[in-house]
């Protein structure tokens, strides 16, 4: 046997299982069929694989017992209950762990004092934004109030100046 033939046989033999299982592309199948016509060694290997396959098929498929479906359906009640319960609890755990991971990764904080001050500051900011209209009522920022009054006066004066100006053209009636 030539070396080229041996190499061809080797590559063909690697694909014989797939050939028997009809898992090869069309052109590969044609190539193997053409090779099998003149190679008795590979042909006997095909027979050998087919024999193993047939031997394996001697094992009869086993069927599930008659009450299989009943057992499965009876077990599903517990699964459903746990499933719903787990879904809610899992979601809470997922959200809290997500927040925790985000804080850890973005702030890289492990110091509880820093965490406390950060949360305190956060709450202060939220409080300040929510209750900002009430600051004027408490009269804590009187300076700003004065400035705001002054600004309003300036506006009034400038308005007065504008209104005192004589019009460039007057409308005359014939």
């Amino acid at each position: 046997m030539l070396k080229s033939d041996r190499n061809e046989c080797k590559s063909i033999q690697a694909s014989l299982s797939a050939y028997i299982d009809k898992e090869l592309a069309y052109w590969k199948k044609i190539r193997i069929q053409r090779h099998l016509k003149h190679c008795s060694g590979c042909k006997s290997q095909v027979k050998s694989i087919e024999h193993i396959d047939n031997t394996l098929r001697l094992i009869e498929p086993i069927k599930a017992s008659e009450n299989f479906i009943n057992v499965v359906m009876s077990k599903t009640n517990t699964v459903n209950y746990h499933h719903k319960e787990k879904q809610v609890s899992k979601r809470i755990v997922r959200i809290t762990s997500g927040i925790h991971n985000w804080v850890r990764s973005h702030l890289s904080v492990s110091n509880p004092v820093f965490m406390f001050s950060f949360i305190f500051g956060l709450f202060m900011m939220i409080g300040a934004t929510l209750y900002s209209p009430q600051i004027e009522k408490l009269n804590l920022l009187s300076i700003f109030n004065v400035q705001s009054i002054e600004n309003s006066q300036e506006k009034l004066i400038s308005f007065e100046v504008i209104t005192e100006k004589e019009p460039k053209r007057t409308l005359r009636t014939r």
Partner: protein
Amino acid sequence: MFVSDEDLMIECGKGDMSAFELLVRRYQDSIVSYIHITINDYHRAEDLAQETFLRVLKNAHRYKPTAAFKNWLYTIATNLSRNEIRNRVRRNTYFIEDMVKSEEDIYHSPIMTDVRNQPDLLLEKKEQQQIIKKALSQLPDNQRIALTLVTYQELSYDEVAEILECTVGAVKSLIHRARQNMKNQLIKVGIGGNVNVKI
């Protein structure tokens, strides 16, 4: 009207138990048979098959119709079988069917006593099946699973690749080596017959 597995699975995810029941009815025999050949114990195979379907129900809300239901189901069954085999090795325990080794054992083992009263042909058939099962159990896990899926469940190489999470080329190689090893095993036990050709 035939409803596809994927549609049934979507309905199952919405909580429709009749859809789930239909799915179980469709696949119960093939899953029990598949696990039985993989782990070689009928009662445990039934337990694991039940567990497989319960896992399907548990994760029904996660199922996306882009993946074939059949592949997903076999992936769960394969993982459970692998765990079982691993645990068996770890515990160093064997099932009764594994204990049946030689021809004599088959005739005299208590599990086979009911077969002794059967006609010779049936006994021979049972015996042969037992030997083939034994030879199959000698294969490495991945080879046995791949060969079982292709031969008994008649899945394509693409489907097996998806279940075993490997390439189609790897499946091709697994099947080839599995048949080679199977041939050696069958020759050893004397039912190789005309398979004395080098694969």
